[in-house]
Each structure stands twice: as structure tokens, then as C-alpha cells.
């Protein structure tokens, strides 16, 4: 890696623009990858990383801009095009054929394992699989069906299948290590280093800053569809990288919003007493009226499951949940909504009715409010009034109430989902990663909405994997690790380091 200038550039994207209805995902980005290079690609959700990878792999076509592979300008129209040029993509959700064996899954990529007129050469398939498994440092029986494997084994299987597939030159790995243990991670790093020596190049997408410094030679940072940093890792510090990812503007917005509200201490609204189920272990905490409680944890920490358990979507095996002094564990969501609990799920696709009009999406949780005449018929007038009120308060940009939610931008879709909890007159709001995948402006607006809700005496439990956000928006932060509460920190005293320490540790002394 000494004479980088002399290294061959094998992939170059110039001034790539990608527009979707209502959103510009990429605003003219440049990206280069050299032979034998591992280039980190980082940025928050919605920054444009996956859009770029989709464009290179042929799943999306760019609105503007050119792609050069191996020195030539290429038009990539399909996955088939990109694969024949040596590009491979490994996602974080292993797409394997569960009912087929390990060997069959590996062989699936290889055309030359066929004999003559497409007859399968089974001996060759098993030999080939064994060889690749050994190279990948895995101990697997090639004849076992894939559904027997653990998530991390599947992930590594997918990785070796793609890395060793015939003709692979450029590999894009999308957060492939999130489900792996430290030891497995090291194996993957060794594998990457080994292939690098053989001239393979890697695009390495990750959310963990530490990882970037462990394995990447250089890093490109995306923020809101722009490249904000492109540098060799040896010239960077973790702090610098983090600043590039988050940006300064957001921090300013956050601190301003936080200062408006005076903190309230009052009655306890929600109490969890040693709640245990499949995903949660002995979780106890309580929240006050007017409080914003953040929940922070890494993947698999049980953040989402915590909210779903409170909202009655997951059963409580042991322990108690009290809402305004009333036992609510294992209560149906419909009852909880009428008691004043609102829930906005992590994934908009999960929470919205995409092919239904915006106004219906807003009023669906609170239909009782608009019923008149015989108690059967709904008053569409009342429903639309409510919708208009919510649109005004939350500043949702919609062409009209009848537009299907599908056609709104991510930020507005998110607001429609929050608006639904508003319409149902909730007092306790459970927000799961509500700012994921939306742009900075929309984020700031959602923070303001949350602040206002709290200042009106409502309680908000807010999960996020964005540390900055959690620290700045909330009053207190609950940290989770594998379903256990590892700490409750006052947000004023919280630092990113402290949070990470809590979120990554098994045992924390109080």
C-alpha cells in the first residue's frame, strides 16, 4: 500500500445523482476504489450508502453520473451486468436457500460445476464446498441443510460463497459483522486481508467506528447524499470520523431544542418491575410525567422488544408493568391505545398502510372518536378535520388528504405515524427509532415535536441507535445489553463514551 498513486483504480463513480419521488438520495457523489483496497463506507441511515451500492450492483440506475469499472465507462442495468464484471454484494441479512444444503448453496453461484448439458456434478460440488469452507475457517458439514446453522454461521457462509465465487473482484460487504462474535470477526478480518493480497477490493459498510480502523485502508463518509470526507484511515482519528458522520448542524439544533423545556419531576407514569420474557431479562425502571426517557443499546440489546412488550405485542412471562397505577402486562394493544399509550414502530413499512390515503393512516387508531349516528357510521368530516389539525401541528407536507402514504417522503411518512398516536390522544408515547432514515431537517422537526409533547406533560420513551440523538433529546437514558438493563444515566452527565461502556458491558456496577 505504499505507492497508492500507482495502484490501479478499478472502480470509479463520478458525480452520481439519484432522485426518488420526493427524495434526493445522492446529490452528486464521487467514489473511487483501488485494487487491493478495503474502503470503509460510513454514514448514518439514509445517508445514501446503500443507494450507491445498489447503483453499482445494477439494482438501481443513477439519475445522473457515470460509473467506470476497470478503466472503462460502463452502463450497469442489472445484477447480472455487475456480476459479470466481478462485483459481488454481501448483505447483513443472509439470503440463503434454507432448505438446501451448505454445498448446494455454495454451488448455486458456480456455473462450471455443471457437466455437459447442465447435469450436476455432485462430487465436484462437495469438494468445492469443502475447500471453500476450509479457506473460510469454518467448521461445517457441507451436507447439512442451511436452516440448521446459526445466524453467524449463515453470515460467514454467505461471505465465503461470494468471496470465493468464480470471477469475484470487487466485494461490497454491508454490515456483515453485526451478528458475529469477536472471534468470528477476527476470522472475517483475516479472510479479507488474505483476499486483499490476491488483488480483491472491498467496499466495507459499517456503523461501528472501531471496525473501520481495524480493517479499512481508507474511508468515505456520506452525509445526506453527499461525500463529506474521503481519507486514508491512518490520517484520521475516531473523533474526526464521528464528527464527519454526524455533522455539527444537528448538534446545534439539538441543544437549542433541549434548552426550551424545563425539566419536570412528578408522578410516576409507567413502572416496570422485573419484567422477563424471551428477549428481556429482569427489566425494572420507571418514568415520570413529562419525561423523555431514552433507550440506548446495540443491535440485539432488546430496545425494540422492550417497547413491544410494554405495548402488549410481546407476552410478559414474569414481572409487572404498571401504567398510571394499573396493571397492564399482557394487555391487548387496542385496550392500551384507549388507555393512552401510543406506539410508533421502528420500521415505517411495518407501521404504515402504504396503499391507503394519508388521512386514513392518521385516524385509524382513534376511530371511536369520529363515530356518530347509531354508533356505527363514521363522520368523514370529523376525521378529515382531525387530519388537518395534525397536519398543521406536525407540519406534515402533503398535497392533500387523499394521497397514498406511499408517495410521501420518508420524513413525512414518519410524521404521519407519529400523528396517529397524537390523534389517539396518548399520554405515553413509545417511539422506536423514529428518526431512522430521514434527513436532518425532518429529524430536527421530530425532536421539536417530542420536546413539545413532553412539555405538555406527556411521557416519551424513545429508542435510538444514534448516541448523539439520545444524549441531546432525552432527560435520562436507559442502556440495555442483551435484554438486561445495564444502567440509567442522567443525560446531562452522559457522554458517548459512557454510553458505549454501558451498552457494551455485561455487568455494570451501580
Amino acid at each position, binding site marked *: 500500500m505504499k505507492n497508492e498513486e500507482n495502484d490501479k483504480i478499478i472502480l470509479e463513480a463520478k458525480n452520481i445523482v439519484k432522485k426518488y419521488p420526493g427524495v434526493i438520495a445522492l446529490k452528486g457523489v464521487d467514489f473511487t476504489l483501488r485494487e487491493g483496497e478495503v474502503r470503509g463506507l460510513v454514514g448514518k441511515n439514509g445517508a445514501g450508502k446503500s443507494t450507491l451500492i445498489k447503483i453499482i450492483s445494477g439494482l438501481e440506475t443513477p439519475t445522473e453520473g457515470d460509473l467506470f469499472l476497470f478503466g472503462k465507462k460502463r452502463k450497469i442495468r442489472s445484477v447480472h451486468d455487475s456480476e459479470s464484471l466481478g462485483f459481488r454484494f454481501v448483505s447483513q441479512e443472509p439470503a440463503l436457500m434454507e432448505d438446501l444444503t451448505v454445498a448446494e448453496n455454495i454451488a448455486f453461484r458456480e456455473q462450471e460445476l455443471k457437466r455437459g448439458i447442465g447435469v450436476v456434478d455432485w462430487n465436484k460440488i462437495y469438494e468445492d464446498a469443502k475447500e471453500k469452507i476450509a479457506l473460510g475457517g469454518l467448521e461445517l458439514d457441507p451436507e447439512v441443510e442451511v436452516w440448521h446453522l446459526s445466524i453467524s454461521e449463515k453470515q460467514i457462509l454467505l461471505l465465503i460463497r461470494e468471496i470465493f465465487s468464480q470471477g469475484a473482484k470487487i466485494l461490497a460487504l454491508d454490515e456483515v459483522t453485526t451478528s458475529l462474535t469477536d472471534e468470528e470477526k477476527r476470522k472475517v478480518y483475516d479472510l479479507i486481508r488474505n483476499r486483499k493480497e490476491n488483488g480483491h477490493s472491498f467496499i466495507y459498510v459499517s456503523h461501528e467506528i472501531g471496525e473501520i480502523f481495524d480493517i479499512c485502508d481508507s474511508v468515505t463518509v456520506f452525509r445526506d447524499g453527499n461525500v463529506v470526507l474521503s481519507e486514508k484511515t491512518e490520517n484520521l482519528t475516531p473523533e474526526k470520523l464521528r464528527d464527519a458522520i454526524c455533522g455539527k448542524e444537528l448538534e446545534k439544533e439539538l441543544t437549542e431544542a433541549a434548552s426550551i423545556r424545563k425539566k419536570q419531576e412528578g408522578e410516576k407514569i409507567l413502572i416496570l418491575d422485573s419484567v422477563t420474557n424471551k428477549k428481556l431479562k429482569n427489566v425494572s425502571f420507571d418514568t415520570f410525567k413529562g419525561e423523555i426517557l431514552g433507550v440506548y443499546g446495540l443491535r440485539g440489546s432488546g430496545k425494540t422488544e422492550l417497547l413491544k412488550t410494554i405495548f402488549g405485542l410481546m407476552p410478559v412471562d414474569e414481572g409487572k408493568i404498571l401504567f398510571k397505577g394499573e396493571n397492564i402486562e399482557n394487555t391487548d394493544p387496542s385496550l392500551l391505545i384507549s388507555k393512552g399509550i401510543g406506539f410508533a414502530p421502528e420500521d415505517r413499512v411495518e407501521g404504515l398502510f402504504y*396503499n391507503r390515503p394519508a388521512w*386514513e393512516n392518521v*385516524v*385509524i387508531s382513534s*376511530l371511536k372518536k369520529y363515530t356518530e349516528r347509531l354508533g356505527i357510521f*363514521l363522520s*368523514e368530516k370529523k376525521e378529515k378535520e382531525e387530519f388537518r389539525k395534525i397536519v398543521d401541528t406536525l407540519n406534515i407536507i402533503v398535497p392533500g388528504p387523499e394521497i397514498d402514504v406511499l408517495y410521501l417522503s420518508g420524513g413525512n411518512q414518519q410524521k404521519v405515524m407519529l400523528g396517529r398516536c397524537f390523534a389517539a390522544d396518548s399520554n405515553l408515547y413509545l417511539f422506536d427509532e423514529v428518526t431512522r432514515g430521514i434527513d436532518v431537517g425532518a429529524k430536527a422537526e421530530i425532536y421539536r415535536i417530542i420536546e413539545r409533547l413532553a412539555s405538555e406533560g406527556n411521557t416519551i420513551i424513545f429508542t435510538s441507535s444514534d448516541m448523539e440523538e439520545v444524549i441531546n433529546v432525552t432527560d435520562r437514558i436507559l442502556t440495555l445489553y442483551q435484554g438486561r438493563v445495564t444502567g440509567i444515566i442522567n443525560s446531562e452527565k452522559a457522554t458517548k463514551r459512557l454510553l458505549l461502556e454501558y451498552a457494551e458491558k455485561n455487568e455494570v456496577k451501580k
Partner: protein
Amino acid sequence: MNKKKIELFIVDNLIWFIDLGLIAAFTILQPRFLSFGNMISILFVVVPMGFLVLAMAVCLISGNFDLSVGAIAGFSATIAGVWYLRWMPGTPWPVLILIMLLIGAGIGFFNGFFIAKFKVNAFLQTLGSYILFYGLMLIVSGKTLFDLPKEFYAPGSHLLASFAGGKLYLATIDLIIALIAVHLLLTRTSLGRRIYAVGSNPKAARECGIDVEKTLIYVFIISGILSAIGGLHYAGYVQCVTMSMARNDLFFVFAGAVIGGVSLSGGKGKISGVFGGIILLGIIEMGLTLILLPATWREAIFGVVLISAILVNTTREKIIMHLKARD
């Protein structure tokens, strides 16, 4: 912008333009087609099937489907017939109709209960019901049932008025009332709102406090009742209860709903479109009769017209996406 609005209006109500196009085509082939008398009989011949299309539409909107609509029609009519002729001769006709409705609701509940509570695949469950209830018809009766009370046949056959060379039957009015009732149910009641929500995204529906299971059971009960009313009209139309009632209509029932703009993936569809789809079935039926097509050709031509209409309508979804995304 204005042009776009017009385009959207056309695609949104495409079924009616397809209907008009077909009327024009048949009129060219046979000018008599356009007569008032013929137009109004279109609204008569499709009535029995129309009820089944309506039943299917409600199921499709909820993200499910019901293959047993025809079997429910046939079985409920058979029970009413056997009841009157063998089990309790002299039972008054309103009781017979009530029995039919209860059987329709019962089979609907049976379907809905297994689909909602035990997560049985709707295809398998209703296919099972289809086979089961056509089979039971053969056990219970086994042959065509004649000589039911005149009033029992009336909903499907009673002539209300003759004017200007056309005949208006009670059946047409029945179907229109049913269409309006289902339209109000779907758009003006909270059950209707819930049916759309469950069809659009069942997971989100649950998170919005909707009892998905209960909603689905209601959907299948509604479908069962509408199918039973369909059975009553089939019986009236031919003045008897046959053992093959509605047996060959399943494909047309599906087609009518889908051409009417009801999405196969759920959550989308309106009753005005479904009405257009029902009329389309009538236009083809009457059209093929009037141009004196040999019987051997009819089925195939029916198929061709339907498949083209479905194709046009599937492209419709894409055109709508394209138009709406184009700002």
C-alpha cells in the same frame, strides 16, 4: 397538472371505459345490442354472479380470498330446498330465506375462524370448504330440486315493470341495494376502515389496536351471507336448485372483482369499480349471445376478453404509480 388530473381520472375509473369500449364493439357487430331492452337485461343476467363478485371483493380487500362463494350459494339453497320439500314441508318462505342466510353466515364463520385463529392459509381453507360443501349437497339432495314456493323464487325472478321494450326485475334492485350497503359498510363504518387496514398491512393494523382476527371473521361472515343471497338469486333465475349451481363461475367471479380494480394484494378497491366489473361480465355474456356465436366458441372468447381486461387493469396499477410519482 390538469392533464394529469384527467389522466388519473381515466385510470382510476378505467373499468367504465373498458365497459363503454366493449359496448361499442358489440354494437358494431350487432346494432341491436345497444337497445334499451338489452342494456337493462345486462343488469338482470349478472345478478346471481354479481353477489358472488361482491362477496369476493370484500375478501380480496381484506387481503384474503374465498374460493367457496359458489359452494356456499349452492349448499345454502340446497338445504332450503330439502328443508321445504322433505324435512318440514310447508315451512313459510321467509323462514327458508332466513335459513339460507344463517347457513351462509355459518360457513363464513367456519372459514374465517380457521383462517384467523389457526392461521390456515385462506386458499386451502376455502378450497376445502368448496369441495366439502359441494360434496355435502350431493349427499343431502343429489338431484335438482323443483317446486319450491313461488315467493322463494321471487327475489331472483320477479318482474317489476315492463317499459320501452325493457324489463325491470326485482333481482336488479336487490343487487343495487347490496352494492350500496357494502359500499356504505366499507367507507362509512369503522369495520370497513378496519377491513381496508387489515388488507393493507395486518401487522400495522394490530399495532393500531385493530383486532385482526375478529375483523377477518367478520369479513368471511359477510362473504358467506352475500354468497347465500347469491344462491337465492341463482335459484330464482332458473326456478330450481341445481347441484352444479355456480360451479363454473369461480373464475368469472375473480375476474369481475379484479377487473373492477380490487387489488389481489389487499387494501385497495372500491365498490363502484366492482359494479363496473360485474357489468363487464354481463356485457360479455349478453354480447356473445346476441352476435350468435356458436356455443363451442363462447367459453374461449369469454376467456380471451377477460384475460385482456385483466391485463389492461394490471398495467393500470403501474400507470397510476408512474403518474403519481411524476411531479
